[in-house]
């Protein structure tokens, strides 16, 4: 009786261990087609760095950007089609804010996160306790990724006075690709290893 119980228990433990390995692999493979994470920029997280350069940012209760441009590194465990960045921030002086991948030293393809001329209505719709919540999406298929890392630039051209910066409370990152049921399993695994081979070797 005890022997049978132990056998069943061992089978459960082995099955559980296999499930744990599969679970972690499935996270990295993003089999559901999505990988979401967030940061408050107070410390490095597995997928998002702190805001850099560090001397342009002060970490108080929130990350305070006193000069721009600043950037943040996003680490991608595999190939993705789209990235959605959702910023929760306080822009008391209504600066124009632009965000985009940092590919070159200058003239990077930035998109407006906030624009003085067009922001009023959308900002009202996306405000929570004085914080604006705005998101911006980028197509990753056309952006070169180096060493599994993508650097995003946050540009605030009008920010000149260090005492009149912006507060960033949170950044939510949503990486999207085809789910495993929308893509051939072989193709999915091939794409993963292809990305791994190109980015990490």
């Amino acid at each position, binding site marked *: 009786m*005890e022997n049978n*119980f*132990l056998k069943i*228990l*061992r089978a459960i*433990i*082995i099955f*559980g*261990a296999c499930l*744990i*390995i599969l679970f*972690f*692999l499935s*996270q*990295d493979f993003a089999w559901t087609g999505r990988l979401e994470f967030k940061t408050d920029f107070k410390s490095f997280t*597995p*997928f998002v760095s702190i805001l850099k350069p560090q001397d342009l940012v002060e970490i108080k209760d929130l990350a305070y950007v006193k000069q721009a441009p600043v950037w943040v590194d996003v*680490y991608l*465990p595999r190939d993705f089609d789209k990235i959605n960045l959702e910023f929760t921030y306080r822009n008391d002086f209504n600066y124009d804010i632009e965000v985009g991948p940092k590919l070159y030293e200058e003239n990077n393809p930035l998109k407006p996160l906030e624009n003085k001329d067009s922001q009023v209505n959308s900002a009202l719709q996306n405000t929570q306790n004085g914080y604006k919540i705005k998101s911006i999406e980028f197509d990753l298929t056309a952006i070169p990724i180096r060493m599994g890392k993508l650097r995003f630039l946050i540009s605030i051209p009008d920010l000149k006075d260090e005492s009149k910066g912006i507060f960033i409370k949170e950044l939510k990152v949503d990486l999207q690709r085809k789910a495993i049921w929308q893509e051939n399993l072989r193709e999915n695994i091939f794409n993963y290893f292809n990305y*791994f081979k190109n980015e*990490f070797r």
Partner: protein
Amino acid sequence: MNLDKNLKNLILLIIRDLFLAAFVLLIVFTFLEIVKPKIILNYLNLDIFLLVVLILGIITILYYEPAEKAGQKLKFLDYSTICLFSILVGILCLYLTRAIGLLSILVGIVSAVICFNLILNSES
């Protein structure tokens, strides 16, 4: 009193099995981390996991007393498990010594054989 002893033995057996499973998981995780950095670390705090493995290991070493089973032969499943574990150790050694070129294959094979023999000797 006897029931208490049986229960204690059963719990220790479960802890030992959990320790073995966690130890094998730790080896697999380490191997995966070597092959692709952060594949596990991004989702799991390995320090905490290591602590759990250590605690289970310490309990097993301190309290678990294997029952005397003189003359019992190893079964096919035992051999398969030992083989699989040895191959895993061999691959790990091969990967760690890959910088030395073709010799790493020899190192991998030798370490797998040594591991297999060590486990077999300790079992018998």
